[in-house]
């Protein structure tokens, strides 16, 4: 498995001796190019075109985040796995209302079922969440009857609202009360953590899509537009509860992140560097966690499972095998 490199410090990234070289006042560091698949950049980093050319050759993706931790964009090297056939099929599934709705419903299905898996885990551990689980199950029946994407999105929004109600019970720390979901900027500590985790998962899924034939610009639940990648947002919906939310619960439960790890800023509340590093370490070890995959009957890391999800979508659109989302077993 190739590594992800996270850069928080400021410095210069360049090509040197046919590998990646990072230099700043604290020292010099060679990064093995053959063992790297993506670089996440949070610090102020200088780089040049020669370096980007080298990354294209080595099929390494760069993801940039600004100083408020928002996702800025990616350097997505020219597609190395080109398949006109898959792109045509992908577009066909977007243009056909029924085909598009089918996939969108599947993403929501994966999302809510994984939410329930997370809630049930905490329910069994003595946090009473039965009511919330029941009302999500009740609402979720309607998603299969929806006739349009906007209708589906409305139900998804309702499910998510109910789901977030459970957060305060699970976390049980007053400073980390949920209140309501706020983005751009997040207005309280918990929202900051959710936003940060979500942007990490979006970029991770994007990196995994890069290893398949799929075009990340054509999504199904999220409308395709002129600006951004959307397929990664769709797939991320399935994994947010079991990866991001679980990380947040466990970090707060073990008191690894406290209010000291945040700072108040004109742009809302942001994580300090130490807090970000703690989160990223946890995120990284989560992705490397090996679990049993029911579909193939073998064990795999979460990162591999994300990539397999992309393969399953590819299989679905070329008519090989109907897509069913990954549902966590515990």
């Amino acid at each position, binding site marked *: 498995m190739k590594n992800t490199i*996270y*850069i928080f410090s400021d410095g210069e990234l360049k090509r040197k*001796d046919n590998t990646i070289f990072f230099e700043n006042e604290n020292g010099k560091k060679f990064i093995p190019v*053959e*063992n790297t698949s993506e670089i996440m950049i949070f610090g102020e980093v200088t780089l040049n075109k020669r370096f980007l050319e080298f990354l294209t050759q080595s099929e390494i993706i760069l993801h940039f985040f600004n100083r408020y931790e928002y996702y800025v964009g990616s350097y997505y090297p020219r597609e190395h796995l080109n398949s006109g056939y898959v792109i045509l099929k992908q577009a066909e599934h977007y243009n056909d209302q029924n085909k598009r709705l089918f996939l969108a419903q599947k993403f929501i299905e994966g999302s809510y079922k994984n939410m329930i898996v997370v809630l049930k885990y905490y329910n069994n551990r003595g946090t009473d969440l039965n009511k919330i689980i029941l009302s999500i199950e009740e609402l979720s029946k309607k998603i299969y009857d929806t006739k349009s994407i906007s209708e589906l999105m409305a139900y998804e929004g309702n499910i998510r609202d109910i789901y977030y109600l459970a957060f305060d019970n699970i976390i049980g720390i007053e400073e980390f009360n949920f209140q309501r979901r706020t983005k751009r900027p997040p207005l309280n500590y918990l929202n900051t953590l959710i936003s940060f985790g979500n942007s990490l998962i979006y970029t991770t899924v994007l990196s995994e899509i890069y290893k398949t034939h799929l075009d990340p610009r054509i999504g199904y639940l999220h409308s395709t537009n002129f600006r951004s990648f959307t397929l990664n947002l769709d797939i991320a919906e399935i994994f947010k509860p079991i990866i991001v939310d679980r990380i947040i619960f466990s970090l707060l439960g073990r008191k690894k992140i406290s209010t000291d790890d945040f700072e108040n800023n004109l742009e809302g509340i942001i994580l300090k560097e130490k807090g970000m590093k703690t989160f*990223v370490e946890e995120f*990284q070890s989560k992705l490397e966690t090996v679990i049993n995959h029911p579909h193939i009957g073998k064990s795999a890391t979460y990162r591999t499972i994300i990539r397999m999800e992309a393969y399953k979508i590819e299989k679905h659109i070329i008519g090989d095998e109907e897509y069913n989302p990954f549902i966590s077993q515990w």
Partner: protein
Amino acid sequence: MFVIFVYDVNQKRVNKVLKTARKYLNWVQNSVLEGEITEGNFKKLKIELKRIIKEDEDSLIFYTFESLKYSSREIIGLKKGGEELIL
């Protein structure tokens, strides 16, 4: 698999060996590198290195591990290099 690579080569070729190995592994100390590597990349690395060295003069040693479960790593004194994913 995980590999520890140590080399003792003629001074003229030290730099070439280091530069090649750094593409695949993390530098740890003078003449020592280590890291996670795939079978394919390991073969590539060995082929590239064979082209550089003179087999009657230089010596390269690879220690490979299927898993690091039964190993431990202890440093006394300075930490000079090694893998870092968060910079």
